[in-house]
């Protein structure tokens, strides 16, 4: 199983930078997801690691070998494509064994490996069919099988599930997770779907405009996003991002929000954040499920965020302007000064919600970002 290292990678398409001095380290047997919106460069990065595209500057190392100038088939990699790229005139068995046959692998070994892969992916009874006779999910499994049968040191996935419908995607996610556990292989997985990234990856690299904004374990990234972009991108429903001003008066630090002030006594500033000057514009982020909802004077708790009600939390009384039922939960939209604030509550409780609610924002659950540089403070 190979470790991958990309150093100072740069690539331009005409005037547009696709990769901008990017650095990436992937450990052996790790599952790394490259996550980002379209145009962020994640597919380009994958193609560069695969050797399908060349870098203008920088290098790619696989298993401590500099492969920057090597052709794809010399890098000991296998790839699964978004459109599956199955050979239409061959049967599934022929598709799986084609690369091995061309490489001159002995027939007995080919048969053994194909059988093992077919069993692993449960496509055994499809071996005699042609791709046109398979469903989308089956084709995807054959595409994965074709990659696995080569027993490479690194597996690359280019948005393999985006052509499937939602139910199938959930099922295939399980398959891929199971595969990674079984094979223990190094896998790099490109996707624009953060649910996929969160559920599959041991580490996620969020990309934007050719750079990696943050690379971290899913839960860490979820709880402590390091930039406003990552904060807004990861997590569904998305984090509330509110404009505010950071104030220092006397010995206290607090932030002015659209709906009122909020003390920051329990907020943990990051070590790297310079001593914030007074009246610094910031962006404050809080996830809908971290907003504590109370109704009037009723001390009843409406969601789990309200574990402890105390002076450390700021309370705001706000009108409810919209409700968004999502099945198990319900998003409640409130008018927060000039902004809208979303809070997540149980669906069953949503029915009894009054028109004005009290919201509690806790300083230890928020994220503060410098408004100019978008980095975490």
């Amino acid at each position, binding site marked *: 199983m190979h470790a991958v290292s990309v150093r100072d990678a740069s690539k331009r398409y005409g005037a547009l930078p696709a990769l901008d001095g990017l650095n990436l380290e992937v450990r052996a047997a790790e599952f790394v997801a490259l996550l980002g919106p379209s145009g962020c460069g994640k597919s380009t990065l994958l193609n560069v690691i695969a050797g399908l595209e060349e870098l203008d500057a920088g290098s790619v190392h696989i298993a401590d070998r500099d492969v920057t100038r090597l052709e794809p088939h010399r890098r000991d990699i296998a790839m699964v494509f978004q459109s599956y*790229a199955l050979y239409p*005139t061959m049967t599934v068995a022929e598709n799986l064994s084609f690369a091995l046959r061309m490489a001159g692998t002995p027939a007995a070994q080919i048969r053994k490996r194909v059988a093992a892969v077919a069993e692993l992916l449960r496509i055994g009874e499809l071996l005699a069919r042609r791709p046109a006779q398979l469903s989308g999910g089956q084709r995807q499994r054959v595409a994965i099988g074709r990659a696995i049968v080569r027993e490479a040191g690194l597996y690359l996935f280019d948005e393999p599930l985006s052509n499937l419908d939602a139910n199938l995607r959930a099922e295939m996610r399980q398959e891929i997770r199971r595969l990674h556990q079984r094979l223990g292989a190094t896998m790099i997985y490109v996707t624009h779907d953060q649910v996929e990234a969160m559920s599959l990856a041991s580490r996620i690299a969020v990309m934007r405009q050719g750079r990696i904004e943050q690379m971290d374990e899913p839960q860490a990234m979820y709880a402590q996003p390091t930039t406003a972009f990552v904060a807004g991108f990861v997590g569904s429903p998305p984090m509330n991002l509110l404009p505010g001003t950071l104030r220092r008066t006397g010995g206290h630090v607090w932030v002015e929000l659209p709906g009122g002030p909020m003390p920051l006594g329990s907020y943990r500033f990051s070590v790297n954040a310079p001593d914030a000057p007074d009246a610094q514009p910031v962006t404050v982020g809080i996830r809908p499920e971290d907003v504590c909802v109370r109704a009037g004077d009723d001390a009843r708790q409406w969601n789990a965020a309200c574990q402890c009600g105390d002076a450390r939390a700021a309370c705001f009384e706000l009108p409810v302007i919209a409700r968004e039922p999502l099945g198990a939960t319900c998003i409640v939209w409130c008018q927060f000064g000039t902004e809208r604030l979303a809070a997540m509550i149980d669906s069953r409780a949503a029915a009894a919600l009054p028109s004005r609610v009290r919201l509690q924002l806790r300083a230890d659950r928020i994220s503060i970002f410098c408004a100019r540089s978008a980095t975490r403070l």
Partner: protein
Amino acid sequence: MRIAPKLALRLAPKLALAPTLLATGICLYGCLLWTITVSFTTSQLLPSYRWAGLINYHRLFRSLRWHTAYANMLLFGASFMLLSLVLGAGLAVLLDRKLRAASIFRGIFLLPMALSFIVTGLAWQWLLNPGVGLQHFVRELGWSRFTFDWIADPACAIFAVAIAAAWHAAGLVMVLTLASLRAVDPSIWQATRVDGIPPWRVYWHILLPMARPALLTAAVLLLEVVIRTYDLVIAMTHGGPGGTTDLPSLFVVDFSLHRASLGVAAAGAVVMLGSALAALAPLLYLSRRRA
């Protein structure tokens, strides 16, 4: 949604189509039926409508000229189609490889299609003329034992005609195959690069099989050329030497217009048609099956 038109509007397209329908019906199908009918009559110089059973077919199959012509057609057909398909597919693969000046090459390969078969036949006749053409030229260069007198050799003349015909038709096969090659999902190429499969194998195992429908279409069109070939032979060899490049189409034209044997000519025409259908059927079956 199309609204139901009024009567005048409904008649107009039918009226527009009427002349074509009439013309096709009478001139093409009517004449076809006429020919089939005449093949069973006693027509000689002029058509008569006396039933004569299969006597024309007997005369046809006893004619040495017909047998030679038919055998020539089979030889010509097989070699022409094989050569055109292989050359056309090869040229398509060549142009798919992204050469410099590819459009110039493509222009050259398609040039023959703009030419008449008369021009093609004459040009090739001169080129292959042993006395002043290619053979003479190569001998002048020093290879004094070089021979390429196929066009004058009764055993090989038909193949010389096949080469000239393939020269004309390879471009068509190339265009059809190239369109199919270009329409391939680019991620298939990427997959073969990752799997380390050399390009020629990609063409042989993957892309040319994928181009089967295009090649079948080309084969059907080539078959049509085989049946229709007339001008090329007239210009290139006149059916010689010694009748070795005679074809059924020449036979039919000759017998109907010059030999005063309409019945036999009609019989020949019917056999030609039947052979064409017999050859077409498996091709069409193959193309339907793939669909």
